């Protein structure tokens, strides 16, 4: 099968799936409306979809929502870009140098298990409740998944590709440029998606615990102020943003990289 056909059929499947997804969402919203109408004091416990929508219009009108949303998104982009920019070369370094890998691998495993949220207290001690703190948390969170992905990607490249390049006269640098990086690219794409996904969760957590604006901060303070509609609105925006980002940006990038070179076994 040619790659174009594969991509088309995958898109068709998505489209027919999308219809069912809409049905499920409508069902959930109806259920939500129903429960909200049946419980006492819904404004405190579960405001109806209509009041959540109203609160979003109110916040839009005041300009708070775009500002919070923009802050959070900007942090995600900046933090994960730095994380990827640091993690990709580091993973590559580990992959091409056995002794560096042996040296750092246990440490990486250690830090990977200490989640982004767990480092927030110490970073707050160092940098206070600030943008810097949130950025460090995002960077830290996105660094490890991508570094591990690059490492795995390079290690999976068949040795004959490297031999072929070397017998054609490739220097060490050209082996990296012409074989290792492109060979690991599908893993780099997958790892980037993973990293950005983790980073997105880290932004929200970071803003809740150490931020002074952004979506995370918004839902955290809304809880204090008993603004349940705002809490729910924040959650919907967090999940919805990820769906849009993943569906229209990250997944197509990943699928294109993997499919173009026929790197998946079929």
């Amino acid at each position: 099968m040619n790659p174009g056909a594969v991509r088309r059929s995958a898109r068709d499947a998505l489209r027919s799936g999308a219809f069912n997804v809409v049905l499920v969402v409508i069902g959930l919203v109806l259920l939500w409306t129903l429960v909200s109408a049946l419980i006492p004091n819904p404004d405190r416990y579960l405001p109806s979809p209509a009041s959540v929508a109203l609160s979003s219009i109110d916040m839009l009108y005041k300009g708070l929502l775009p500002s919070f949303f923009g802050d959070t998104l900007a942090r995600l982009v900046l933090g994960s870009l730095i994380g990827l920019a640091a993690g990709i070369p580091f993973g590559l370094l580990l992959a091409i140098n056995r002794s560096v890998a042996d040296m750092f691998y246990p440490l990486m495993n250690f830090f990977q298990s200490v989640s982004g949220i767990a480092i927030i207290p110490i970073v707050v001690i160092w940098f206070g409740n600030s943008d810097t703190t949130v950025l460090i948390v995002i960077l830290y969170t996105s660094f490890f998944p991508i570094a591990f992905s690059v490492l795995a990607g390079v290690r999976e490249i068949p040795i004959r590709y490297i031999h072929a390049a070397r017998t054609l006269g490739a220097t060490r640098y050209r082996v990296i440029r012409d074989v290792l990086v492109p060979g690991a690219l599908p893993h780099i794409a997958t790892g980037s998606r993973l990293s950005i996904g983790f980073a997105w969760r880290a932004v929200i957590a970071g803003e809740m615990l150490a931020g002074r604006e952004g979506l995370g901060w918004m839902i955290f303070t809304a809880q204090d102020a008993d603004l349940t509609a705002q809490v729910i609105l924040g959650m919907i925006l967090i999940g919805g943003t990820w769906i849009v980002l993943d569906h229209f940006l990250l997944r197509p990038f990943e699928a294109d990289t993997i499919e173009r070179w026929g790197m998946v076994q079929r």
Partner: protein
Amino acid sequence: MAAKLVVEGLSHVYPDEYTGQPVHALEDIDLEVADGELVAVVGPSGCGKSTLLNILAGLLPCRQGRVTVDGAPISGPGPDRGVVFQEHAILPWRTVARNIGHGLELRRVPRAVRARRVQEFVDLVGLAGFEDRYPHELSGGMKQRCAVARTLCADPAVMLMDEPFAAVDAQTRITLQEELNRIAMATRKTILFITHAVDEAAFLGDRCFVFSRRPGRLKATVPIDIPREKRVWKGLLSDPVFTAARDEILKLVREEVAIDEGTGVRGAS
């Protein structure tokens, strides 16, 4: 004719991956390949013929003995020795043309010159029209043609081929063998061709080196005096020179296999 490739007193011992016991892959190999000659190397599996190729390619170190190309000792891989690997090793993320031109690109040959050279070899191996395809869009035979063109395009002094046609179907293999014969005729390359197929060795080789089972020694050299123009499968099968050479090689190889199976004595005839 001058010797292009000279191997003197080459032995190779390496520790077994699991047991750590020394494995004697090659023992005291002496051989020469003349300029423009195509030499086939046959032997039972595990006879060290791939080890020999890897040492010649510079992918394995030469610890005991001496290996020279044009009089210069080998130290590591280099573009003077091109390799065609058993499994197609063309890069999946490069198009056919970019794969074939890779060696020239590494040597910083200007783009225009490169394009002309690439086209020449695309045509030589019959891949015209497929220049912009990726390897996964090609058949097994086409991938191997691309690999051969890539090696030739880098213009090595010696071309080393490691069972390059073992993984393609029988029909394609016959075509590829005839094509390689035509290419050998057209380019006058010095080629060392490793195979376990006796027919293939007799078809392609000006001479055939038969290796003994492990530890690999050069057991015999069988000359095959058939001009390249006459090497076409149709007709060759009834050529007495070909059949005699093939039977001789077959006999030599079978003696080695028989020893392995515990049913024969070395040099039984």
